[in-house]
């Protein structure tokens, strides 16, 4: 299982990297971040980019900083750095918790936040986090930089709104004041999610003021569960079980998950309902405990 041949460059600036993407467009170039998703595909010879542009030496693409109410994370920031960051733990604990579900430490040491988001696996954790958090993703291309809302970023299985010559440079997450939970069902510990839920709950006294819920593994992309969020608005946080179950049921309406050897569509739906309920309950309880 050896990868096919490719041309390679390790530019030292973003401009150079974008330039290479444009210059070698006909070779089906791809950027190389941590490679933890791309290289296995290449070893299977399912991906055969003619040109790999390694971002490891490009300055300014990694790091975690706060800009007021926004947590900004460079696309090349390793997942393990996010996992350990005190800044993230405070400002975006949903992200910190979700990263803990992504494979194992060795993969998180190499894998990057941007790499996972740009890969857009329909069962990946970070797209659900980005959606629930209403994050913005910043892309740099030949024409300059632009912000893409998470709601527009994931366009299909393994495809995003990034143009072929664009590179994801950073993720901008609004800081969330309330409770959070990332829960997922996988068959083997730390294996990919069959179903995953990102839940953010904000309270007003003992009522749920706002909920943001996203699911992964149940659709061609991670999705926001808007109907469920509506059910939760105004619900009693001290006794959220019934509302959570109702919200989960509302989210399941209209979901037509695919089946595979691990779970039939019916089972995926049942798991989605279960994990939505569990995620809402956990996030709500954490919101209450943090008051």
């Amino acid at each position, binding site marked *: 299982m*050896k990868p096919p*041949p490719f041309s390679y460059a390790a530019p030292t600036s973003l401009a150079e990297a974008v330039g290479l993407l444009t210059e070698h467009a006909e070779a089906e170039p791809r950027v190389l971040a941590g490679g933890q998703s791309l290289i296995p595909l290449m070893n*299977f010879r399912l991906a055969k980019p003619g040109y790999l542009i390694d971002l490891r030496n490009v300055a300014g693409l990694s790091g975690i900083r706060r800009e007021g109410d926004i947590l900004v994370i460079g696309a090349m920031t390793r997942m393990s750095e996010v996992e350990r960051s005190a800044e993230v733990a405070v400002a975006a604990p949903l992200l910190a918790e979700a990263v803990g579900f992504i494979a194992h430490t060795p993969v998180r040491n190499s894998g990057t936040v941007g790499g996972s988001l740009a890969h857009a696996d329909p069962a990946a954790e970070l797209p659900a986090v980005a959606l629930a958090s209403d994050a913005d993703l910043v892309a740099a291309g030949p024409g300059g930089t632009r912000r893409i809302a998470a709601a527009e970023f994931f366009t299909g299985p393994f495809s995003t709104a990034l143009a072929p010559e664009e590179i994801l440079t950073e993720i901008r997450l609004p800081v969330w004041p309330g409770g959070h939970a990332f829960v997922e069902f996988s068959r083997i510990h730390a294996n990919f999610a069959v179903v995953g839920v990102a839940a953010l709950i904000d309270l007003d006294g003992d009522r749920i003021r706002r909920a943001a819920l996203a699911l992964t593994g149940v659709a061609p992309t991670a999705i926001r569960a808007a109907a469920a969020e509506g059910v939760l608005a105004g619900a009693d946080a001290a006794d959220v079980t019934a509302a959570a179950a109702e919200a989960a049921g509302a989210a399941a309406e209209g979901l037509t998950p695919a089946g595979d*050897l691990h779970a039939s569509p*019916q089972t995926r739906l*049942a*798991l989605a309902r279960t994990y939505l309920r569990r995620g809402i309950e956990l996030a709500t309880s954490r919101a209450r405990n943090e008051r």
Partner: protein
Amino acid sequence: MTTVDRAAAAPPVRDQSAKRRWVGQSIRRVEDPKFLLGRGGYIADRITPSCLHAAVLRSPHAHARIVRIEAAQAKAAPGVHAVITGAEAAELCDPMPDFGPDPARHTWRCLAAEKVRYVGEGVAVVVADSRYLAEDALELIEVSYEPLPAVTDPERALAEGAPLVHEALESNCAYERTFDFGDVDRDFAEADLVVRDRLRWHRSGGQPLETVGAIAEYDPGTGSFTIDTNTLSFTSYLFMAAGTLKVPVNKLDIRPVPAGGSFGSKLFANKPAVIAAMCARQTGRKVAYLEDRVDNISNCDHHGSDRVYEVELAVMRDGTMRGIKIDVIDDYGAYIQFGVGHHGNALAQVVGPYTIGSVRYRVRAALTNKNQQGAYRGFGSEVNNWMLEQMVELAARELGLDPVAVRRKNFIRDFPHFIPTGNVYDSGDYDRVLDKALELADYGHWRAEQKRLREEEGRYIGIGLISAQERSVFSATEFWFWFDEPGAPVTSTPESVSLKVDATGGITAILYSCAFWGNSPETMVSQFVAEEFDCSPYDVSVVYHGSRDGLPATGPGGSRTTVMLAGAVEGAAGKIKEKARRAAAHLLEIDPDDMEWSDGGFQVRGDPERKKSLAEIAIALHLFKHSFPADMESGLDESKVFDHPYTTMPSADRKDLGVFYPFMGHACHVPVVEVDIETGAVTFLHYAAVHDCGTLVNPRSLAGHIVGGTAQGIGTALYEEYVYDDDGQLLSSSYLDYLIPSAMEVPELVIGHVETPSPYTPHGVKGGGEGGRMMAPAAINAAVNDALYPLGVRLTELPMTPERILSALRAAGPMGGRAG
């Protein structure tokens, strides 16, 4: 009817009471240092810059005619030395060695020649300067296939009108026979109740972390092949591999290298060696062929049992089990290299530890468009254990009896005990194992917890308790008692050891065909040699000999290694000591009968002052010929070809299969699980396992095998399956989908040992390497069913995936299903 005088045929009963110094010690393994240093010497470590590398093009179709292969572009690719198609390989090599029922009609080749029969079957091989370049060239080969309808369900394969996997066979049923042992009809007529069930065990496999590989060289000067490979077994049958390569047997040398695990999957796995050898002869260069993971998952030829059971168990109201009728269809895949030997393993212990008096066993071997079965830890007996214990559980439920009491009611207690099939259980104490297991499992506590947690918290806890057998050391009769007129009624399954004492008294043990797979042959042999000669096990040098000029040997399999090595070492040591006694007696001018072995040498009986140490004897024999009588040869080396110590022939009518797996271990596993009825997830709260494998050579080592085997059993019970869809596509083609348990899926085991020595083997040892996996699937299924019993759910299909558990809960209706 039976023609064997059972008492007379048994080997002499041995006195096992001797005090042992090394056997029974959990010493550090002799093998470990090189592996810990990263100098294991596995097959991939032996690749040199001069090696060429092979890669195999595999079929994307489950069933198709190969119309045409265009290899010109591939041959011209950079670094390519050769491309050999299946049709070309069929000229260069004969079919693969095949112990199946009709090899001429279910012919198996190293590469498919006219048609492919499963996804992953090789159709061509490229040889290039590097594996990277070989794989580049694979993509340039154009194959035209004419797809054919595929069949992947064994019952459909046996039905009228199914696509034929082998046209020449005119059927997808490669073997069918019904065996009757004891008086089945009477036992069923007299039973108070007949318990029935249908059970399904899907195939999983060993999946060691190291794949199969070989490095081959051909010397045109001598016409000889030399092959280094991580599979070596059945030395005496290697003439079959030589036949495949079209060379005389004495021009083929297969040399074993350490393997990174096997669990059966490296047993007689000659295809990579044949492919490498064929390429070496064609290119005139040394060629390495190492399977990659996708090669191995789809094409290893060692998938495990894949069975459909219809079973009836005849019981009395008081729990006595009278007879059992077993109708089993086994899906062998596209070839059947080991025949139905897996059912011999089942028949060796088909009634488990119970006094069941009669057995009807109908076996049908179905061929389908899947990779073929091979060996996987248990070799088919673990499936029987599971099936039988499921039936015992069901009987207990239907009779309203306590499952522990039902087992005790039926335990065999007199040994040696002959079961209806004719095999013997040499020794055992099943009550003692059960008692210890109940104690280690804290059984009473968990029964109380089960009740409390369901009533107070609505949680579903289950306790599985199973008692089952783990046979060891197969006889060759198991290969052929399937046929009334077998072509080759072979009776040899030897194991050989040579012991050499050098001039300084240092001992070297030479093993033949005795692969290192993670079992500990060096440690076992070192402990046996140390026991014999009062040396340190770490002073023994153990080497592995190749096949060509080696002694006959069989290698690991059926948990035979420990017993067979014990016998071979005992035999060789006996010969050494005999010569050493005569030599010492001559040097001391004493009658040999007045000499005794004591503490590392021969002394005058009762007189340690007049003694010659082994070193003194050895140097004299090596260097001082004239000190000895003319008929005493120089040196001090002896060999023993030790064959199966207890085999008897089957009767002509096959109502008695004879003794063919006599050294019978036993175990009780008691897992406590929780089933999350919303997700179908199964987690372990506790797990106790008590095994009796006779005298233990290295208790820690055996405990390691129990845990490791149990981990694989957990995989089989809950996670692992080679999943083929209706079109024969292998859906679980990588470790993303073939799910191997990690440290989080395997609980800590509380392990107990009981030792009832075998009366027939050196030190009373029995084999025990397979036991964990032979128990765990049965125990875990029982535990899950115990948990779900209040919901009216019973799982009868393995693995018990979340999908299967949730489906069963949904089907059970409002009591069972739980929406989010």
